């Protein structure tokens, strides 16, 4: 197993390696592999080396936090003061925010070293990262396949050892699905557990920032560092988790009630189904109790998600008018013409599709039939989740109904692509936490992800179950051979 955050932190503390040396190892690996993988879209090596020097100073003074000097990456929709943040969209090309997102502010204070911003679907709208204006990142496991999305670059960078960890955002599966496709760990925290201040909004009632890592322990360490309430995000909650979650991972699963809903397995690739069943057997053999449960509302979670997410997106993306930042069209006849041309030239097709759907479901005459109805069904889905968690401690499900798609796959219509989010979107609708961890590979060697879903603010149980599986199952998918080695 490759070195995790705790091992690297130990080496840094013992001065076996300096933060500057460690950063240079990652920079070299990025220079070698990124031209092929396209995981990063903006490289910040100069500021990374300066941050590494400061981290070395902090380490020398002693008592440095666990993430001090650790090289990492941020998704291109998380604001970084003075450094490019473009959501991989032409409409934000060249944009440099003038403030830091709260998550980045927190990590910076702890001595984190930012290597660059990672590739993603334009405005986080997609499941393959192919809607990026910089071209798609490639899956390090097999470069003929996509990374998944929308946090595809963040997953690829961690998988290929081009960052020790990264942050992504998850509106309908955008951390968990690429984690599944690339064979890494991805945690979507409870809605409100992590501040969204400085995360460029897509669907504000669904968006949540979380870590992508190579182990469950690393995910817990990063979550511990970024969680917490924030005055600048009124939906964030200062929840008292007690001790750091990374210190409470060792727990067996004896007596743990694991729910399995058949609705999550409808239409799932049989290879994925069989790997999840193997994992469930492992849990059961170790004393967990498997509960078969029903979850009828899951079937309609997808249209509910797309209606709510697109409605919120159509409002959130109204701010891109070419006046205050980003792209502006070169020729126009009036201010209104400038705004329409700027938006039509600046947004890609998938973003336009979602803005149009959002505008439609919010428009007079359709609001009740779509948006209001979707909000009511959201309540029903929430009630079903509450009922399930009275009987179970966690739910286990596939992360995605399929493994990674081939690049440039043209066989699917937009709606067929939306259907591939079936296993992840219910979690965002209800605002509960969920993790995706690797649980094997298909016949082509492409990773399969297992999702563990928990109660609101019960990341502890989710992480404990995932950590138990990871320790017990051993190496279910080989580590990527290239990239930085320490």
């Amino acid at each position, binding site marked *: 197993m490759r070195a995790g955050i705790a091992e690297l932190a130990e080496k840094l503390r013992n001065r076996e390696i300096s933060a500057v040396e460690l950063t240079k190892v990652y920079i070299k690996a990025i220079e070698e592999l990124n031209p092929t993988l396209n995981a990063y879209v903006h490289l910040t090596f100069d500021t990374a080396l300066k941050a590494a020097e400061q981290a070395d100073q902090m380490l020398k003074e002693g008592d440095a936090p666990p993430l001090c000097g650790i090289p990492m990456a941020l998704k291109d929709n998380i604001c970084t003061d003075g450094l490019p943040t473009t959501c991989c969209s032409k409409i934000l090309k*060249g*944009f*440099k925010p*003038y*403030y830091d997102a709260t998550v980045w502010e927190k990590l910076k204070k702890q001595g984190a070293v930012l290597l660059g911003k990672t590739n993603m679907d334009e405005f986080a709208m997609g499941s393959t990262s192919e809607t990026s204006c910089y071209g798609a990142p490639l899956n390090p496991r097999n470069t003929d396949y996509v990374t998944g999305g929308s946090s595809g670059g963040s997953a690829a960078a961690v998988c290929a050892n081009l960052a020790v960890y990264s942050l992504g955002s998850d509106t309908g599966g955008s951390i968990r699905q690429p984690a599944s496709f690339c064979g890494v760990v991805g945690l979507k925290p409870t*809605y*409100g557990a992590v501040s969204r201040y400085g995360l460029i909004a897509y669907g504000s*009632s669904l968006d949540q920032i979380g870590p992508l890592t190579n182990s469950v322990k690393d995910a817990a360490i990063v979550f511990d560092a970024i969680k917490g309430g924030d*005055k600048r995000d*009124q*939906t964030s*909650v200062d929840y008292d988790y007690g001790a750091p979650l990374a210190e409470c991972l060792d727990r067996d699963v004896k007596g743990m009630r694991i729910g399995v809903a058949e609705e999550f397995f409808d239409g799932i690739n049989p290879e994925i189904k069989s790997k999840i069943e193997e994992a469930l057997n492992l849990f059961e053999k170790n004393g967990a109790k498997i509960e078969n449960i029903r979850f*009828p509302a899951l*079937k*309609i979670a*997808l*249209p509910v998600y*797309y*209606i709510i997410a697109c409605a919120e997106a159509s409002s959130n993306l*109204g701010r891109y*008018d*070419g*006046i*205050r*930042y980003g792209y*502006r069209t*070169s*020729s*126009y*006849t*009036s201010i209104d013409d*400038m*705004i*329409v041309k700027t938006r*039509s030239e600046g947004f890609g097709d998938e973003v*336009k*599709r979602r*803005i*149009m759907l959002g*505008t*439609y*479901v919010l*428009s007079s005459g359709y609001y009740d*039939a*779509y948006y209001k*109805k979707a*909000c*009511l*069904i*959201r*309540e*029903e889905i*929430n009630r079903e989740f509450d009922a399930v968690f009275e009987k179970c401690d966690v739910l286990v499900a596939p992360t995605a109904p399929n493994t990674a798609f081939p690049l440039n796959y043209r066989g699917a*219509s*937009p*709606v067929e692509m*939306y259907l591939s989010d079936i296993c992840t979107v219910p979690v965002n*609708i209800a*605002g509960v936490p969920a993790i995706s961890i690797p649980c094997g590979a298909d016949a082509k060697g492409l990773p399969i992800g297992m999702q563990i879903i928990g109660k*609101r603010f019960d990341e502890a149980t989710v992480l404990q179950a995932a950590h138990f599986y990871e320790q017990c199952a051993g190496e279910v998918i080989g580590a990527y051979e290239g990239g930085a080695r320490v």
Partner: protein
Amino acid sequence: MAITKTEIEKLARLAKLSFSDEELERFTAEFDEIIAFADTINQSIEGGTEQIRSVGARMVSFDDLRSDEVVPSLPNEKILSNVEGYNGFFSVERSKK
């Protein structure tokens, strides 16, 4: 329900977007499929009459809102750093050829 090109054009105007003839053709066909997909919620279970709350509203007590304090705002020059400003304002020419 088949959506027409005229409806798509009206929707585009509301969304401050415009489409070329070729794009309009393609978007209309795709949008038909997308609306049919969205329509599946209308054949589903009833959501009941309980008041709609957002996920945020489940977490946040309205007794617990932050106080309305005036805090320093970002300096003008920073806000204008991404565009060519004019005397401390955002600027747009009336028309540009």
